[in-house]
């Protein structure tokens, strides 16, 4: 199992241009900059996550989608197919048997895509960190944007994490680097 820690570089990339042309365009200023911000605003307010729930955190994710802590008011609608999803909320422990499946699902998602690691198992292995069959954090397989601690994180915590991701999308659209 190779240990990778690639964070996607946080600058805007316009499709179809070389790096030098991209740099030129990044300095472009008013029109294209505002266009990027509008795109960022639209993407952040309509995040469609993939239903990816492995363990107990999945139940809290379902509860957040329920009537009491409504997720729909943030524009978040769960999609079953990775081809139609914006982000994936990895909720639950990832085992070594499940790891290739996660990687394949992530690769099937179209750009732009984001990853939220929900719960301590997805962040760093959680209570099962000493087990023989558990991957110690999903960021060993796919790059993660937001980590939400908790075991399981309660629905307000999950909503806070999603709000943080929305902020990150909007800030990146303005060209600022977000770690």
């Amino acid at each position: 199992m190779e240990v990778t820690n690639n964070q996607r570089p946080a600058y805007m990339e316009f499709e179809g241009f070389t790096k030098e042309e991209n740099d030129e365009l990044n300095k472009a200023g008013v029109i294209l900059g505002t266009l990027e911000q509008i795109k960022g605003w639209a993407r952040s307010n309509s995040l469609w996550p993939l239903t990816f729930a492995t363990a107990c955190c999945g139940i809290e994710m379902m509860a957040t989608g329920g009537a009491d802590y409504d997720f729909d008011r943030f524009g978040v609608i769960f999609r079953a197919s990775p081809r139609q999803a914006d982000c994936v909320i990895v909720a639950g422990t990832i085992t070594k048997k499940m790891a290739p499946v996660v990687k394949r699902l992530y690769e099937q998602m179209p750009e732009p895509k984001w990853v939220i690691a929900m719960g301590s198992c997805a962040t760093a292995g959680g209570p099962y960190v000493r087990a023989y069959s558990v991957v110690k954090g999903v960021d060993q397989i796919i790059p993660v944007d937001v980590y939400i601690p908790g075991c399981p994180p309660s629905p307000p915590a999950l909503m806070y994490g999603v709000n943080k991701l929305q902020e990150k999308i909007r800030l990146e659209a303005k060209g600022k680097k977000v770690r």
Partner: protein
Amino acid sequence: MAGLRTEELTMNIGPQHPSTHGVLRLVVKVDGEIITDCDPVLGYLHRGTEKLAEDLQYTQIIPYTDRLDYVGAMANNHALVNAVEKAMDIQPTDRAEYLRVINVELNRVASHLLFLGTYLLDLGAMSPFLYAFHAREKILDLFVKICGARLTYNYMRIGGVKWDAPEGWLESVREFVQYMRDQMPMYDELVHGNEIFHNRVIGVGKMTQEEAIAYGMSGINLRSTGFNWDVRKNKPYSVYDRFDFDVPLGKTGDCYDRYWCHVREIWESLKIVEQALDQIEPGPIMAKVPKIIRVPAGEYYSGVEAMRGELGVYIVSEGKDKPYRLKLHRPSFINLQILPKLLKGNLMANMVAILGATDIVVGEVDA
């Protein structure tokens, strides 16, 4: 049509799927719409709880039991604590026993509500999911008040419980029981007479009593075939012999009987909670137990009625404070074994109904 060449198709209903209730993978061979063979592939959530338990003291294993059947965590706690107490001959205090029963039965109501919500969502009905989760939130609020967690409680200890009920908690439980009794007829009305629902679940996935017993099934799956086996009544533990409740039985073991047993069990659990509220007295919540729990050398097995069946704990001890071997007899793992047999010859659409009615939680299948 006779001259057409048809082939058997091997399909993968993958680990990530909205209706597999977690990460379960089914490799099915289909001939048109009929399933000819089915091979469940497990292990996508195997976290090695039994191996971890060999390195932990008994009290430290309790949080891990929470995460087995994460929808009904109170009963999992109870299973481990009950097994160690029976092995060491510790009698918990009365108030602790009653608090345990109240919490386990409330958790049973929450778990069955979740079953109703997700099963009907699988079959295509979106609204019961929202109603069920709304009622469930009320129960989780009660749990937050008593032990601080919504899902993984870590509430029971060997010899009693960790926290006493705060001021006003017992009254709010009583109010909740009344609220639930008023709401249940509305939930029933949502689906009960629905023709589509009837067509999808009546007569689908039948089992006989002999089959179910030979496969070692327990819980609602066994009771839906008509066999009266409830660990709370047949091998009483804790204070269940002081309550008066019925055990709902089905007739044919099909999906409708299992659904109906779940609904009836909610009513029975509310009955038990009410009786426990009437009988509970103030007192200590923890018995006198040694500081370090050492189970005497030997082998012990005991089971409790968890939400999905009989959750048994088999402890092999050498007299130390950590078990030599801790084996968990997990009902979802065993109830799933009959699935290939039930699916053979059935339509693809029935697969969702049968898998949902078996009511598995993958955390318990894989452990």
